[in-house]
């Protein structure tokens, strides 16, 4: 649908000179530029209060910038209702707290809300719902009431609700918050499936290791863009996350030391886990 624009190389989503402040507090952004290339995975990294959620909400049209604009596939998003509806067909935002987005007591009914808002008829919406539940592996939950689901399950239902709108860009605010390691792994596997199908994924997080492992690109944000670029390059320097009051990523530190010690070839990939790194040190 937006193939032409994508092939032309325009980013799937871009912030151009965004200026924004909340009425009660001071300004958050004073001219922020950022770009999300199509079909990429981008981590927005930053400390609490650094503006991650605000940026995601601006990109999703849930907040209006005081100045500047958001561009989808290179085209500026207007300010009218129509323009906003068009944006929401293409860009979906999943909030951190699932209770902010679940309004129905029935999982099936809740997931069907978005597709019906797109104007689909019951049959087409039903198909979307089935597909989204399937994609998240929660078909078995369809008949369960929302209030009897665990936190992790509710997070998946909200994700299914966003997915059922078939967005080309999915924005996720702290999707791993509150999940245990197994929950994180299963979420990442789901996201990998979406990426393989061509969905552009943006995740806000303050977990540098997760960003290093998962994202192709990172955007380091602390009320302004401190760094932007390929994750492996940006996070290789431990001082970069430190500038945003974050810890350095574990893997590049280990990889650098191992390479210096001659235990890891220059062109070999970084170790993915501490165990893998430990193995390189010898039996």
């Amino acid at each position, binding site marked *: 649908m937006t193939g032409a624009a994508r092939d032309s190389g325009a980013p799937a989503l871009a912030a151009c000179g965004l200026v924004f402040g909340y009425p009660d507090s001071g300004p958050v952004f004073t001219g922020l530029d950022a770009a999300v290339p199509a079909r990429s995975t981008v981590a927005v990294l930053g400390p609490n209060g650094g503006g991650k959620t605000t940026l995601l*909400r601006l990109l*999703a*049209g*849930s907040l209006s910038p005081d100045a500047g604009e958001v561009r989808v596939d290179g085209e500026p998003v207007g300010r009218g*209702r129509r323009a906003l*509806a068009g944006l*929401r067909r293409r860009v*979906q*935002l999943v*909030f951190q*707290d699932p*209770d*902010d*987005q*679940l*309004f*129905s*007591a*029935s999982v*099936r*009914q*809740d997931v*069907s*809300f*978005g597709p*019906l*808002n*797109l104007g689909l008829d*019951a049959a087409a*919406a*039903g198909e979307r*719902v089935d597909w989204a539940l399937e994609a998240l592996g929660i078909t078995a939950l369809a008949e*369960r*009431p*929302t*209030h*009897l689901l665990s936190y992790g399950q509710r997070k998946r239902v909200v994700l299914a*609700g*966003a997915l059922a*709108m078939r967005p080309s860009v999915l924005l996720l605010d702290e999707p791993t918050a509150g999940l245990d390691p197994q929950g994180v792994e299963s979420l990442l596997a789901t996201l990998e499936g979406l990426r393989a199908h061509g969905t552009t994924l943006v995740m806000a997080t303050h977990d540098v290791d997760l960003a290093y492992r998962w994202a192709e690109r990172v955007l380091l944000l602390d009320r302004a863009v401190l760094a932007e670029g390929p994750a492996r390059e940006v996070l290789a320097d431990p001082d970069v996350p430190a500038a945003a009051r974050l810890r350095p990523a574990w893997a590049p530190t280990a990889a650098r030391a191992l390479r210096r010690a001659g235990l890891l070839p220059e062109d070999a990939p970084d170790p993915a886990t501490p165990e893998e790194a430990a193995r390189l040190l010898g039996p």
Partner: protein
Amino acid sequence: MPAIDAAAYRSPWRRLHPAVKGVLFGGLLVCALVLPAWPAAPLAAAAAVGAVLGPARVAPRAYAGAVWGPLLFVLTGAAALLVSVGGPGGAVAMAADGGARAAEVAGRAAAAVCCQVGFACTTPLAEVLPRLTRAGVPEPVVEVVALVYRMLFVALEGVRRIQAAQAARLGYSGWRPWIRSAGALGAALFVRSYDRSRRLQRGLECRGYTGALTVLVEETPLRPAALAAAAAPALLVAAVALGPSALGAAL
């Protein structure tokens, strides 16, 4: 979380059309209220309890727990019928035939409670509420009611947590702390409810909300045979209660 709600989602009867359960338990309830109390009330109660614990497979503990509260009201209320106040027998006296009246009222009400809770324990509200539009309730009202249903669980969870936190800091250790804590809980809950509604609005706007909360309601077929079967227990109770003549006429 309310035990009745959990039981309803667990019952195999949750898949039945709500109208079928409405006819079954509603019919028995009418029998208990309208027909001669003896034997209609115990028969209706037996049929309702049998259905709930039998084919509907509601856990006996959950059912008993739900029925207990209203039965307590019924018993205290009926006890008031035992005494006569301001009559010729003095300011307070035992009422003439008070026992019989109390027993009849208690019998009817107890049977009715069994029917009401039977319906509640087998019918998840998520499946009833969207159908109210078809019953003529204005759509905005149905949407508000459905929202209340979803949000009340979030609110109850909030109450549980705030109360636990207050109790941990000895907030319910006496009358004065009790009032202070309950007041603080109420205020916090009100602020949270307001905040919750604004956050939900933001969250739903991102999903394309522009004012209508339209959802897909799964069609459950309403089979006439099921309706007829559901009506049978009530008809049977009626036939027995009204005597052999009515039974003959019905046949």
